[in-house]
């Protein structure tokens, strides 16, 4: 995998954001987790985005159309930018929306990239809670610097504190 492949992805995403085709977005999933932890295998890049609304109807198509017109192909639920599958995930819950709004900006080879904060990654992984999410939770708790007050606040407001306590009891009890 060439560095340039990832660079190209972030350039395309950044351009779409600058041009207003992506209203607000943030990298989530494994790639965002890897920013805070050791690297581990992943096949794709997840991009959470707040979909635009027109007359209270959520519009998912404008930037898909843009990417397809640019010649990018779809593969299953992915859009391929070069050789990297990208999953564009419209925010579906208040937690995901807030996570995108509170995302931080980082640099990938001088390209600005928005990425979810570790506290929101923890909350989202807790909410979904598949086996691979539990792995990422453990990595984040072991290796990332987590703002505990912020995490408690996010978990409480999104009714995840019981799930968090159960998780902690099971894996760190």
């Amino acid at each position, binding site marked *: 995998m060439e560095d340039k492949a990832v660079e190209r992805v972030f350039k395309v995403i950044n351009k779409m954001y600058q041009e207003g085709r992506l209203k607000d977005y943030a990298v989530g999933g494994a790639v965002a987790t*890897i920013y805070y932890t*050791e690297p581990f*295998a992943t096949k794709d890049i997840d991009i959470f985005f707040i979909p635009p609304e027109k007359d209270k109807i959520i519009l998912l198509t404008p930037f898909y159309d843009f990417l397809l017109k640019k010649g990018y192909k779809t593969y299953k639920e992915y859009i391929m930018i070069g050789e990297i599958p990208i999953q564009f995930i419209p925010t579906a819950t208040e937690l995901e929306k807030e996570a995108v709004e509170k995302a931080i900006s*980082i640099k*990938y080879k001088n390209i600005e990239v928005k990425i979810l904060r570790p506290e929101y990654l923890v909350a989202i992984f807790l909410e979904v809670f598949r086996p691979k999410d539990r792995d990422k939770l453990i990595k984040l708790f072991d*290796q990332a610097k987590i703002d505990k007050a912020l995490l408690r606040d996010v978990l409480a407001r999104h009714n995840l504190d019981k799930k968090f306590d159960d998780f902690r009891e099971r894996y760190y009890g």
Partner: protein
Amino acid sequence: MDNIIAKNQKEVEKYRQMIFRSKEECRRIFAKEPFEKKIKTAFELYRRAEYIKKFVR
């Protein structure tokens, strides 16, 4: 005989703990590497895992 096994088990356990500590230290070092390098490693790990899967019956 039992005593000998017990002694060896202690040594083995000590050795295992040393390996685990060393692995944790490696994880912390990898976690501090530049994001660019970590993403590259992540995709490379996936590629290799897919390759190895071809040989699993």
